[in-house]
């Protein structure tokens, strides 16, 4: 009986020591840019866990958590090039959650992404679908926790349904680098965005490439536009600004 018990214990010990070797922690060291480096120069280090593809990283100096989540293309030399899966979290060196993002099984953002400041307050919240910002909108939060709805059009596609057309006099095209508008006539050719402003407190901004502008060209935006006789405008030409409004009502 004693022999049998000893034999059983040996089996259990050998199995448990074997399983310990399977989950032994591999540690990789990375610099601030996520490139593999030496222990001495590491900004953070990464360890695998008992769960397949699930990793935890820690700051080298404070040993506080840097990251936790699943990495599906684990590559020791390029941590910055990782593809993530499920809910992943990044932390500030003081241990406060910095970013929490949700990824799909092929490693692109899909779901909620929340960003926090070093005090743990939510500063930005966005929803992604297959790697793209849903409806090109997200919410920022100011220091009082009040929300600001943001629409950001980078002209990477025409999912906002801009009126794209081309004829001899006027054209509107989405190109690499932005939205190109052309109007050979001395009148305003406007492309309106399908986005409604509900608040009296708002801001609008855009970037204009002045390389294209001539001295006689005016480009910019109209806002509070009701019709061709009632709107506000902010245009620039090569070196001049044109600010004003049209109002007949």
């Amino acid at each position, binding site marked *: 009986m004693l022999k049998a018990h000893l034999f059983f214990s040996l089996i259990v010990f050998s199995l448990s020591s074997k399983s310990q070797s399977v989950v032994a922690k591999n540690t990789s060291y990375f610099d601030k840019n996520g490139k593999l480096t030496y222990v001495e120069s590491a900004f953070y280090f990464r360890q695998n866990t008992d769960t397949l593809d699930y990793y935890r990283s820690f700051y080298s100096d404070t040993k506080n958590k840097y990251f936790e989540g699943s990495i599906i293309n684990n590559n020791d030399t390029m941590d910055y090039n990782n593809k993530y899966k499920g809910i992943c979290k990044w932390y500030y060196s003081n241990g406060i959650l910095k970013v929490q993002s949700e990824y799909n099984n092929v490693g692109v953002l899909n779901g909620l992404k929340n960003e926090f400041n070093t005090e743990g307050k939510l500063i930005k919240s966005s929803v992604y679908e297959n790697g793209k910002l849903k409806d090109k909108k997200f919410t920022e939060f100011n220091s009082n926790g009040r929300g600001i709805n943001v629409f950001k059009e980078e002209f990477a596609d025409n999912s906002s349904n801009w009126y794209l057309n081309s004829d001899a006099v006027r054209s509107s095209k989405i190109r690499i680098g932005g939205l190109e508008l052309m109007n050979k006539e001395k009148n305003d*050719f406007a492309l309106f965005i399908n986005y409604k402003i509900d608040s009296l407190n*708002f801001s609008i901004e855009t970037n204009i490439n002045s390389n294209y502008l001539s001295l006689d060209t005016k480009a910019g935006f109209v806002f509070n536009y009701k019709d061709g006789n009632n709107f506000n405008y902010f245009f620039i030409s090569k070196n001049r600004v044109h600010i004003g409004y049209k109002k007949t009502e």
Partner: protein
Amino acid sequence: MNFDDRFSEHLKGFDWNNIKIACSHDSVVYIINNKIIMINKMENLFGEKIGLTINNGMVMFDNLVIKQSQDQVVDADLLAKKFCYYNDEKYPLKAILSGVLLGEQGYVLSCFKNIDISSKFIVSAYVNDTLKRFFAEIYLKNDFENSVVFKIINPQNYKFQKTIFAYQYLKSVESEKDYIYYYLKKNEVNNDFESIAVNGDLKYDSPHDHNVEELKYYGHSCIGAPVFDKSGNILGLIENVNESSKIKIRNMQSVMQILFSHPEVYKAQKTLSTDYSEFNQKIHKNLVIIEVM
């Protein structure tokens, strides 16, 4: 109807320019490349559409960003800075400049590119030991020399500080090589004004301090600040400052051209050269701040 149609030094001729408006209920702030260029009353409150436009040419737009608050002001910190107050009246603030008093009658000399004559001006000038604020009007201006003389509106007939500097025709920044320019800076802790003196040479690289808030929203308020030699002779005015604090000085000889034809102004500043020790102690009382609205 136009509010404004003018040259802007904030525009980059061959690069991307960021143009922005920030609106709050009844007012709108116009911004180019993070510099406020105008604040005005909001019109057409009931229009809702936003459009990108082109007139007579071609253009490329990128990054259209629209923000709207869920329940309060967007860019609250920006909009909080946009007004200045005088006698409990609220005025939109476009710029802050420096200048120098030209005598007890309240003439103020400054340097000002493309001055908008429809603007209102508040000048803060010393009366005895107190900095007081007054409305001022443009008395003379010369767009070619970018120079302007304001006359302080002074119904109480306050006597302003005597000028303690002098002007000598043969002296210039180039002839003296070393110079000092002075301007008033708001202390961010106690809101008092302190006189800043900055030494310069012919390299014109001149790092200098400003109130952080002023710098952020209105640029270098030392534009218009007087430049002196070490004997208290005025050599010129700061005409421009670029982002790396490299200064451009408008020589006094050219500025004087607009003063010569107006003896009431010219005489006001024509004093003898003073003792430098006294000059250094008292020059701050000849300095002014000009708020442009």
